[in-house]
């Protein structure tokens, strides 16, 4: 079985030859420590035998007033060399229905939008599973209004929120269709809906605004023949029924220290979704020993992998604080313990 088939089989809730190893992001410093021979970002995935490759969208930045930057959404950023992977905007262009009416969203069909995806497809199609990581219907809406204003509007200005979400949905629906047509096998939807304590909004609010639009996005991806992995940080027990009901093929990576233990998720929902994750990348991968990493992988495989429907990864990403040797230990442990049929006592 090659990597592509391995991931596909797991996403279809069956047992492949081995638990697939996937990772949304592997920091360059970790890559070069483990695998100095890698010449570009994707060499690492190839050489280390990861089963999926992830790429993502690109928006241009232009200089804005006061030495700030503006992206194609009109979001304003501080130049920040310390930001890893995700930049955080400091303000957005929308505060009223009038602003929204005059607003022009970025063109999802712009030739640079799919960024490295075409190259990834050329290099890996049919061999590795190609995942395109994309925002869904929460992060851009709150960034465009500012998070506080947006959350307040969810209560006080439902019409504005509905219209804003529809606008963002339309952009993303086109973007994900384009990505699948360009050769991506799967879309990873990345917006976080919860903190460690629970959802950022009530389940009723989620149901009213976000659930129907997420479901629509998932349907569009399925229509194009792609699969969907829904990621979110935080404790999502109060939202998980709705997330499963969107029709997503997999959930994860999920955060174990927010109470999202994969064995529990799989026990309750494993007949409907695959699970992705979730070796702890806050304590064990940065500061545990290699033996602790191996033990964590072994435990996780024992509890979650039997029967299939499990893709193993960290609980978020291999960020710059992860000890490279621990990540190597994690990959090796999956290869050691992850072959089907799982046989761990």
């Amino acid at each position, binding site marked *: 079985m090659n990597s592509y088939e391995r991931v596909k089989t797991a996403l279809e809730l069956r047992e492949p030859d081995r638990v697939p190893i996937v990772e949304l992001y592997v920091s360059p410093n970790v890559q070069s420590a483990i695998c100095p021979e890698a010449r570009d970002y994707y060499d690492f995935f190839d050489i280390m035998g990861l089963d999926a490759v992830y790429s993502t969208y690109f928006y241009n930045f232009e200089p804005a007033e006061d030495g700030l930057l503006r992206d194609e959404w009109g979001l304003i950023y501080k130049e920040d060399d*310390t930001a*890893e992977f995700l930049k955080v905007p400091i303000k957005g262009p929308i505060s009223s229905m009038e602003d929204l009416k005059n607003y022009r969203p970025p063109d999802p069909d712009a030739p640079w939008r799919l960024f490295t995806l075409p190259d990834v497809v050329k290099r890996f199609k049919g061999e590795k599973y190609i995942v395109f990581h994309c925002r869904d219907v929460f992060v851009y809406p709150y960034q465009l209004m500012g998070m506080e204003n947006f959350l307040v509007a969810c209560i006080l200005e439902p019409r504005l929120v509905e219209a804003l979400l529809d606008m963002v949905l339309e952009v993303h629906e086109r973007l994900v269709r384009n990505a699948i047509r360009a050769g991506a096998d799967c879309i990873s939807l990345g917006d976080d809906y919860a903190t*460690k*304590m629970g959802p*950022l909004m009530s389940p009723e609010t989620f149901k009213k605004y976000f659930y129907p639009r997420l479901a629509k996005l998932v349907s569009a991806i399925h229509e194009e023949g792609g699969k969907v992995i829904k990621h979110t940080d935080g404790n999502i027990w109060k939202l998980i029924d709705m997330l499963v009901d969107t029709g997503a093929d997999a959930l994860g990576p999920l955060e174990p220290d927010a109470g999202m233990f994969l064995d529990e998720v799989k026990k309750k929902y494993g007949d409907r979704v695959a699970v992705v994750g979730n070796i702890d990348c806050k304590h064990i991968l940065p500061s545990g020993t290699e033996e602790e990493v191996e033990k964590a992988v072994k435990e996780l495989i024992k509890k979650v992998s039997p029967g299939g429907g499990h893709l193993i990864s960290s609980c978020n990403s291999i960020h710059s*604080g992860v000890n490279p040797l621990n990540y190597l230990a994690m990959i090796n442990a999956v290869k050691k313990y992850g072959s089907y049929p799982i046989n761990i006592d």
Partner: protein
Amino acid sequence: MSILSEIKEAMISYNPQWVKELTEKALSEGVDAHSIINDGLIAGMNYIGAKFRDNEVYIPEVLVVARAMHAAMDVLKPHLIKDDFKRKATFVIGTVKQDLHDIGKNLVIIMLEGAGYKVVDLGVDVPPEKFARAVEEHRPQIVGISALLTTTLGQMRTTVEHLKPYRDSIKILVGGAPVTQRFADEINADGYAPDAASAVEKANELLGL
């Protein structure tokens, strides 16, 4: 229903405009500004705060109620200067340098104001020197330091070290997603709170209030 109960009722039905109008009405009827704050606004805020702590309402509801409170406070401000509304303590708060997140910090501010603290908000991306200057200027009893990113935890440690000369007169409370009690102990903070509601309880405890 008394007008103060009506104000509380308007607060907990997420209607800032109604809260503001009732506050104006109460003042015109000669109700004392302190009573409006304590028995109307803070009563409503506390009710929501408790529901938030128990996961019965969520961040959007708390933000709406805070907006209602601020709208009413704007109406009351001119009357408070006359009356000299006494705050129980001064709390300086900010998000550490290189961290631009503020929603957790702002929730703490909402809860603190609801509990009668005077809050000096330094905003986000606050360097240690700015925390120190604010301590000199505002003479707070307590300083709150917030961080969301795991990568900015180092800044929290630096900020606490930078405030060392003032430790006899201030308590330091830390919080934010990556912060734990263990980390708080390690960097020698006086207290740690996992969420906004318990931040107030912890502050009260540290100050013996």
